């Protein structure tokens, strides 16, 4: 029988285009200290540290674990790094959960970050080895054709992506940590924004952000001693698959469907549409909201877009999605998966501030990465399982 595991502290930096005022260790430190303060703990209370960041070339930083131990109070403790591309913030937290549920450690600090201002992810994604021709322009260049396929398969109204972006940009106004704050944003402004990778518009895309997100995870008997409510980890799952294989469904990937199924089994969820109150998922381009709603079973295949149009995914809807403003509003790539979890955690703790969903009892955090190849998910509960 695995140990019960709970998240007892959350800390985030303000996400911003550039954080020139701090070094990379200083950026992590800011989030870590806020998580310690949230849990009313000190460095001495932490047994191990698990960190994650985006692929090395995204910020040109190799082996950051080699020089972070002083900043993260890790001297004399295990410090390890997780790599799973853009989903890394989620899988890093999943590894931290496993260190608790396996009984190896009592309290673990987990942290994920990115300082995109020091580099250029578009450059890192278009490295052109000999004998090849670079044709896929960054993440948007890879994902835009998948969005077009989704549009064709589902017959979704063309403005679905605009509506998702409008919702998430409005939600971000309630989140003081969100990078993009667009108080006057309108449907028309998003519709008329520049087509970067047709069919994906500028305002349907995520920004480039600097920022870090940290969580403190504890075993059951320590979770009861925190000043604020813990979020119980009801399940966590990861799956991966190759970026290309014949007849791969890259729009609704097998790995994503498998991770969701495993997650619901772990948590005893029979009907996610009825039992899960809110979802914070990784939507770097707005059309991915309906796509992931289908992958995770919140809509039948081809019908995810209806949840956007009928208001189900709105902050005051029946099952809100991306209450924090999501990746569309803050995208420190390496941190983005953990930010999703942190929002899901704070929802069931009742600590989500102005973007709190009333009475949220069970929430889902989701991250994906690579060419829709890596999926990390976790379910959090207000009540001990």
């Amino acid at each position, binding site marked *: 029988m695995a140990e019960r595991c709970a998240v007892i502290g959350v800390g985030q930096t303000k996400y911003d285009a550039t954080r020139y005022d701090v070094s990379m260790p200083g950026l992590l430190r800011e989030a870590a200290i806020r998580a310690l303060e949230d849990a009313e703990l000190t460095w001495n209370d932490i047994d191990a540290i698990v960190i994650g960041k985006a692929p090395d070339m995204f910020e040109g930083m190799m082996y950051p674990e080699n020089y972070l131990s*002083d900043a993260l109070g890790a001297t004399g403790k295990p410090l390890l790094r997780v790599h799973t591309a853009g989903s890394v913030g989620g899988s890093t937290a999943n590894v931290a959960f496993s260190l608790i549920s396996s009984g190896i450690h009592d309290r673990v600090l987990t942290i994920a970050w990115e300082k995109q201002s020091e580099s250029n992810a*578009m450059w890192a994604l278009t490295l052109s080895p000999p004998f090849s021709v670079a044709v896929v322009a960054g993440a948007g*260049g890879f994902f835009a054709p998948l969005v077009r396929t989704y549009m064709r398969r589902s017959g979704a109204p063309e403005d679905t992506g605009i509506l998702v972006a409008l919702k998430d940009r409005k939600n971000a106004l309630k989140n003081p940590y969100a990078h993009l704050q667009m108080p006057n944003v309108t449907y028309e402004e998003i519709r008329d924004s520049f087509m970067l990778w047709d069919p994906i518009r500028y305002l349907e895309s995520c920004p480039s952000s600097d920022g870090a997100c940290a969580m403190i995870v504890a075993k059951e008997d320590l979770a009861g001693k925190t000043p604020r409510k813990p979020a119980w980890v009801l399940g966590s799952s990861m799956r991966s698959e190759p970026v290309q294989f014949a*007849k791969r469904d890259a729009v609704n990937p097998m790995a994503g469907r498998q991770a969701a199924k495993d997650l619901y089994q772990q948590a005893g969820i029979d009907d996610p549409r009825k039992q899960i109150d809110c979802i914070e998922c990784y939507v770097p381009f707005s059309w991915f909201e309906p796509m992931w709603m289908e992958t995770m079973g919140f809509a039948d295949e081809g019908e995810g877009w209806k949840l956007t149009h009928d208001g189900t995914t709105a902050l005051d809807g029946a099952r809100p999605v991306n209450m924090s403003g999501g990746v569309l509003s803050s995208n420190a790539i390496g941190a983005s998966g953990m930010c999703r979890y942190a929002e899901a955690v704070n929802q069931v703790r009742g600590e989500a501030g102005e973007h709190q969903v009333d009475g949220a009892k069970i929430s889902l955090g989701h991250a994906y990465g690579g060419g829709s190849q890596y999926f990390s998910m976790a379910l959090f509960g207000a009540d001990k399982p």
Partner: protein
Amino acid sequence: MATIEELVARAEPLKGPHVIEYPFRRSCGPVLSKFFTGLREGKLIGVRSETAGVLVPPAEYDPQTAEGLTDFVEVGPAGKVVSYAWVSRPRPMQLLQHPFAYALVELDGADTGLLHMVDVGGDESKMSVGMRVAPRWKAEREGSVRDIEAFVPEAEARPAPPVIAEPDEPVKSVATPLRLEYDFTAGREQSIFLRALASKKIVGARSPGGDLVYVPPRGTDPRTAEPTPDFVEVSDKGTVVTYSIVRVPSENIHFELPYVCINVLLDGSDIPFFHVLQNCELTDVRLGMRVQASWAADEDLTESVESIRYFEPIDEPDVPFEQFKEYC
């Protein structure tokens, strides 16, 4: 023009240089800013820690307690060599091009060694543990460890030349350019594919059991990890299964904007292939349209994907979505 059998028989993989280069710039934060601003002024700055003494360069956080450190102290500029490694044959990117030592220099007043170079004019016999050294400063300093050209025996050192113009702002970031030079090897299967392109052929490999053809060949079937030893030529005609119109510039991409990036399923293959579509109005691009490779002129054909200049529309009826929906 080589046959597939001839291409497969050539065992040696293609190789070529691959350079990855980027001018990263790191923000210093308040502590390292003091160190780099000090270097610009011709001073060496450390920080005092209760558990570890005076650390140079200054650490932001105490290595034992993780507390923030702010008690800055000026150290050196002279000090002693506590350890060194002699570099008898400098490599092209190294800053000194005659023999020198990498050394840990414990500056006067510091408790840790600063890693830098010691220049003794190439004469290793002048190096010793415990020798006294001091910086040879650059005249024009920018706030970088390179503001010290090298440490030299103390008797040869000169004071730092004065700051030419006193900048107001402290140093907030430092340039840390990266350059990696790889000898890229294409691998056997990729090399067969690339050599075939130089003969205007597109080669794939059949999955075990023969039901699916991968282009380019991968050596193994990604679904099962089984080997794919049977090579097969596929058509240079295909169907656009999905696409995007790219209007955003990107490093390393040399097509004029906007350009159409297509996922094209070549006839006889079972996996789409990324390339660009040209000679087509943007408003005419559609799922299911039929296209064909436009090859480079015979004298320009190379063992590279560049041998296919682009794809272009051909006069064949569109393929219904139902027939390719499993491939997009």
